[in-house]
């Protein structure tokens, strides 16, 4: 450590300098007046360090106590309510995933039980088979067969242009075009999210930069699996007039919209969204 030597003028009223030790890396020559050793300074300094420590201690204590007790952050910046919402959203998404898994598991158990009932109560076989057919039609069971897989993704362009990203309305238009052309079952998966079957009460909505499908948050790239006649479906996807909005943006903004040629067969998950009907009754 390099120590600087400085000359400090004598201060009237202070005791002459004695061999000194450094204070804050300043060393004082013998014989020089050291203001830091003066009675006045000592009074003030010692008094103040005690005061400073008291203030610091009080500050730390208050700060730690505040941090400890502050379970729900107070609105001190606009970020705080946002962070609370973020946390809540994450919790609810986890709950939603669990609920959907539990519903799928319970449905599997009901199917296994129905198979047993068919054996035990053979008279019920017709009713169970009829219910199974209806469930398959409603998309409550898995579907497998010939089909296509479509990829819809944001453009790679670094520019943040609204038209360069995949929107919920693109998915809605695409699904309508697929139903129009003989699709038998459709599902959509976003990046890292569960596969969502397009089912009886499915809605596809956009909230800022995410797309909600069956209430589940998804983000591009989207994989759309479609069960049905491949040639007819491919022809429908290549129809630039019917899907004008998508193709215009593919050409101008680099939106990605392709069919995965490697996929000839698709395995589509069952619908796990809501099918509770509280208000509607058979007339």
């Amino acid at each position, binding site marked *: 450590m390099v120590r600087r030597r400085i000359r400090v003028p004598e201060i009237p009223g202070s005791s002459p300098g004695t061999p000194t030790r450094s204070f804050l890396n300043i060393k004082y020559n013998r014989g020089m007046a050291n203001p830091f050793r003066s009675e006045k300074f000592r009074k003030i300094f010692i008094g103040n360090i005690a005061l400073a420590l008291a203030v610091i201690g009080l500050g*730390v204590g208050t700060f730690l106590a505040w941090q400890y007790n502050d379970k729900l952050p107070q609105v001190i910046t606009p970020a705080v309510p946002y962070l609370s919402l*973020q946390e809540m959203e994450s919790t609810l998404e986890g709950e939603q995933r669990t609920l959907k898994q539990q519903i799928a598991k319970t449905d599997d158990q009901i199917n296994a039980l129905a198979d047993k009932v068919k054996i035990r109560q053979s008279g019920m076989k017709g009713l169970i088979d009829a219910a199974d057919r209806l469930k398959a*039609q409603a998309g409550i069971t898995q579907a497998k067969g010939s089909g296509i897989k479509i990829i819809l993704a944001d453009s790679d362009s670094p520019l943040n242009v609204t038209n360069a990203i995949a929107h919920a309305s693109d998915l809605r238009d695409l699904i309508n075009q697929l139903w129009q052309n003989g699709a038998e079952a459709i599902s959509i998966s976003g990046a890292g999210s569960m596969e969502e079957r397009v089912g009886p009460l499915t*809605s596809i909505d956009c909230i*800022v930069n995410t797309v909600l499908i069956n209430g589940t948050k998804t983000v591009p790239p989207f994989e759309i699996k479609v069960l049905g006649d491949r040639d007819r479906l491919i022809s429908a996807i290549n129809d630039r007039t019917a899907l004008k909005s998508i193709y215009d943006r593919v050409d101008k903004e680099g939106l990605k919209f392709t069919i995965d040629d490697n996929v000839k067969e698709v395995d589509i998950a069952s619908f796990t969204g809501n099918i509770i009907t509280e208000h509607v009754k058979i007339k």
Partner: protein
Amino acid sequence: MSKLNRLMLILRRVAWLLLFLIVGIMLTNQYIIYTKIGSIRSAQDPQMMAVRVSQLYFDNAKLKAQLVERINHETSLENSATNNLETQRILEKEREKYKIILGQTEVVGPGVLLSVNHTLVTTQIIDLVNALRNSGAEAMSINEKRVLTNTPMNQFNEQPNFVIKAIGDKDVLYDSLTRPGGILDLITNGQAERQDEIVLPKAAL
């Protein structure tokens, strides 16, 4: 070194330690908060997240009800193992539910009736039906044709006017359709009215 000097030295070090401890805690805290603030892309983000959270609450409540209904169904089926009549009742009830969803029967319930006195293009009809589903419509029809999962909307193109009926919570449906910036404002400019009883036809085969 006098005792007083030693004490002062220790106190000085303690003071510096505490000072840096506080500064460290505060800097870390600020860093964490501002890192997270960085993820807010626009002033609308917190509002939109609030909408998403509220939607999640709504959806999860329905999923919970559905799970309870499925568990009850499973339990009833299990308990009816030796009772053919009870099994039949449970299976019929299950079948009815799917018949409603698939439009295989005429249905009734409260809801909204929406009248639009001009033509709509396919994308407008798609958005309108989507908005109704998002607001909890359980069954609907357009110009007396049932709208199901796989109903293409192209068939309604070029029609001079529309009568759209949707069964569900009539207040929720009405409010979501007619709120400022709602679907009626945005695309259709039509008239909505609450109805206590709406009848929808069964789907054509």
